[in-house]
């Protein structure tokens, strides 16, 4: 202990007196504590010195990004990739997401949430949370599409070695058409070691595209038969190259691919048609009940659809962060809201106008305008954002040329379910029986003890509720705004009239076939002309068969 020079003379003197022992004990304890503390601090301090050195290097790397010229930024990205800093991927990803920014004091930060006025940020070097900063204090390090491409490829190369299979698959997908001479060798090595066949197949294609770009004719063989669009781009490019041998081989490969594509295109068009048709059926099926079965011309039908869509939005507002659950809950909620609105319309207006179609048309048209403006004033004239849940976005990849968009597939399925449910109600339930009885012969039905007024209300509520369901589904495909309903009202009437008034099967067949016809015509006639042709076709058809595809037979038809 005497080896240590001690700067407290008072204590050294006190060592001679009785208290000496105690003081010594106290000092020993203190010293031991200090030593322990030193032991604790020292290694981190050394580490800190190393960190500081690493951070200076890192700062230099990041500072190179903070330039105006995009090519210079590209070089800076290359430098980061080459640096082997373990934060490289984090920086590149932040840069890719537009989250890497520079604060006014020169620090590099990563923005955690960039909505609203003030954004929470963390330090890009050590991940330390720095609280909130305003847009004014931050300068974004901008990138363009070329750099985004470069970043994605750089990240994909890193991810190729990741343990996560999905990550590896995504990055192999990403690297198609992005392989350059530098990457060729490491990728060939990865192919040898990769366990997953899909990753291997993708990387082999990617490598073959690179070899094709280098002018190797043999590469065409590997690419043959692939339907991927990037392969086609590469082959098309090769087909116009100066090397006649390569050009001929590539052209041949393109031709055989085209052959194969034609079948896929046919299937794709059919799917597009069915999906458009399902939207038409969904929008029209409620009308098939109110107009078709009850004979009420309800111009506010579109607005009932709109109410359903707004219900979906409202549910998502009530359940933030759970768009999927909100969407599922919106199905019964949308039905109820639209059905209640339908009852209000029926009780408030339509029941007084029974048997006067023209007045009903005008009155319900007025209601539709009132509902639209109500939404504009009460909610907003702007469209509302309805979030598509994760499981509904993207597409189901059948093969490289044919992928079916998921949101439309769900809507198609939903339409069929709704249709089947409606058929069940109309055919198998007491309500369905009563509805059919009242519409076929109102007086007779009443004399049999059926309460016709109650049946009217129930039927109208059912038709309106189904319109609400259509709104829930449409919120996933189109804008949720005050004008939503207007876009579908004409189409809905068209489908119901074409299918045969009063016939649910007719509505289904009419909707689906109009959808398919429209999508077949569209590629060569254009969207505007295709619509006109379909309309003219329906007019001619109705001239020939005024009762539509499936006319009602028997005495009901005369009623």
């Amino acid at each position, binding site marked *: 202990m005497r080896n240590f020079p001690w700067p407290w003379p008072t204590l050294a003197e006190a060592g001679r007196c009785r208290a000496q022992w105690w003081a010594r004990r106290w000092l020993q304890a203190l010293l031991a504590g200090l030593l322990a503390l030193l032991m604790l601090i020292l290694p981190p301090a050394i580490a800190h010195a190393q960190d500081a050195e690493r951070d200076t290097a890192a700062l230099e790397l990041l500072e190179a990004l903070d330039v105006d010229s995009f090519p210079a930024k590209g070089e800076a990205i290359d430098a980061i990739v080459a640096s082997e800093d373990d934060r490289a991927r984090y920086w590149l990803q932040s840069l890719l*997401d537009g989250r890497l920014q520079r604060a006014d004091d020169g620090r590099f930060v990563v923005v955690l949430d960039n909505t609203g006025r003030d954004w929470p940020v963390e330090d890009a070097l050590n991940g330390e949370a720095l609280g909130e900063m305003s847009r*004014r204090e931050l300068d974004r390090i901008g990138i363009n599409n070329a750099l985004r491409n470069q970043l994605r490829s750089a990240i994909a190369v890193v991810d190729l070695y990741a343990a996560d299979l999905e990550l590896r698959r995504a990055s192999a997908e990403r690297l198609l058409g992005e392989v350059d001479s530098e990457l060729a060798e490491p990728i060939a090595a990865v192919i040898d070691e990769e366990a997953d066949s899909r990753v291997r197949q993708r990387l082999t294609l990617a490598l073959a595209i690179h070899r094709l770009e280098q002018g190797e004719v043999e590469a065409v063989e590997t690419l043959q038969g692939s339907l991927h669009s990037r392969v086609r*781009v590469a082959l098309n490019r090769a087909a116009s190259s100066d090397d006649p041998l390569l050009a001929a081989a590539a052209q041949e490969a393109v031709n055989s691919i085209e052959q194969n594509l034609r079948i896929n295109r046919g299937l794709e068009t059919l799917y597009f048609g069915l999906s458009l048709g399902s939207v038409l059926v969904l929008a029209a099926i409620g009308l098939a009940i109110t107009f078709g079965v009850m004979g009420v011309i309800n111009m506010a039908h579109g607005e009932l659809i709109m109410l359903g869509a707004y219900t979906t939005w409202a549910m998502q507002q009530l359940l933030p962060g759970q768009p999927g659950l909100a969407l599922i809950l919106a199905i019964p909620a949308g039905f109820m809201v639209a059905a209640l609105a339908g009852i209000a319309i029926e009780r408030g207006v339509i029941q007084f106008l029974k048997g006067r179609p023209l007045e009903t048309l005008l009155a319900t048209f007025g209601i539709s305008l009132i509902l639209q403006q109500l939404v504009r004033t009460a909610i907003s004239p702007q469209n*509302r954002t309805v979030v598509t849940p994760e499981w509904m*976005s993207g597409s189901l990849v059948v093969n490289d040329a044919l*992928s079916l968009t998921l949101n439309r597939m769900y809507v198609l399925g939903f339409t069929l379910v709704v249709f089947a449910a409606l058929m069940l109600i109309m055919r198998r339930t007491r309500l369905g029986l009563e509805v059919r009885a009242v519409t076929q012969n109102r007086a007779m039905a009443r004399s049999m003890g059926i309460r016709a007024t109650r049946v009217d209300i129930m039927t109208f509520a059912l038709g309106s509720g189904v319109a609400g369901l259509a709104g829930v589904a449409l919120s996933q495909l189109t*804008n949720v705004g005050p*004008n939503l309903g207007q876009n579908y009202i004409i189409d809905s009437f068209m489908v119901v009239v074409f299918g045969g008034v009063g016939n649910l099967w007719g509505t289904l067949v009419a909707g689906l076939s109009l959808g398919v016809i*429209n999508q077949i015509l569209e590629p060569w006639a254009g969207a*505007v002309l295709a619509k006109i042709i379909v309309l003219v076709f329906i007019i001619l058809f109705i001239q020939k068969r005024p009762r539509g595809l499936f006319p009602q037979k028997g005495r009901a038809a005369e009623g």
Partner: protein
Amino acid sequence: MNAPKASFTPRRLIAAMLAAGTLTGAGQALADDPIKVGILHSLSGTMAISETVLKDTVEMLIEQQNEQGGLLGRELEAVVVDPASNWPLFAERARELLAQEEVDVVFGNWTSVSRKAVLPVFEELNGLLFYPVQYEGEESSENVFYTGAAPNQQSIPAVNYLHDQVGVERWVLAGTDYVFPRTTNRILEAYLKDEFGVADEDIMINYTPFGHSDWQNIVSDIRRFGSEGKKTAVVSTINGDANVPFYTELANQGVDAADIPVVAFSVGEQELTGIDTAPLVGHLAAWNYFMSVDTDENYDFIDAWIDYTGDEEAVTNDPMEAHYIGFNMWAEAVRKAGTTDVDAVKDAIIGVTVPNLTGGYAAMMPNHHITKPVLIGEIQDNGQFDIVWQTPSTVAGDAWSDYLPGSRDLIADWRAPMRCGNFNVSTGSCGGSTAAEEAEAALAE
């Protein structure tokens, strides 16, 4: 209101205008008589989605001006009417503003067709209209000030960017089927062929109806068109609501901005509020202003707007900036002229220069268009645009396109000796209506 209009004889009209003149003259003697600012934006109907924010913008600017003591010592007062997205109603409301309310200036309109509808009213009653939206050009009226972009301030620089910086060789021109996209695409088609020698088969033109919502086939076509070897881009003049399903379909079919970028002329921050933009990152838009512009003026404007609307998530967009510039230009011209008299303001405003929100200045040109910088932005995951390119200096708006036969020789100059909106430089005469008709006939072809 219809009956007196039907019986308006020219003499009665003059009498009414004289009466109106003496009334305003008398009004000016009173210092506390307010200056009336008319706002002619749809608050209901289809266009309400875009136009209501512009009404709010002008009201905010008026409020700010009043806080600074008004103009010429007088308060400003907003007179708001609702033309309900109904084009003939625009003309009626404009007449109401000018003849009954006797407003000193009007800020309004969005669609070209509504502007065409009110044009005769403003010329007849000698009003002032500030029109804040990018449009197809081929027009210059004595009574209208175009604070939005002309084609040479938006579409041409955007196409140049794609060609020079991105290396695009194939073009899809997709638009909604009405006058602005059709004219813009005609100009662009001529420009692409003349300037870059683009072949016919490398241009695909597609029109869709208003509010089109089924984009499956078109997006699939675009994908196919883009996989034939040459770098492809889509130039979109798709309007309003139809953009949301279009972009959703792009995302679902996996059209990536790195492969086929879409550059839009009608999609701004406002339109993107209805979409999840994560799959759209990298698609482009060309405007003269973006909310993400990094200047103090812009941040002040955004803060004022957020405070005014009380909505933390409120966004600003290009037409709002155009109203900001137009309003300040008008105020400056009134100060310069010392009166709100329409003819005096019309003369005073030419050459007036005010700061814009992008860190530069906007000047009113003799053809009633203004100077603007052109910015190209890429969509970010938060619904904002990141500026990737901009013109080195501001570009002056050209009323008559240089790439269309029939309008090539026309210029507009509303200064004292010429005072003509369609002066033909090859014949050396003010074309009157014939040259404009020729140009329109050429467009209609």
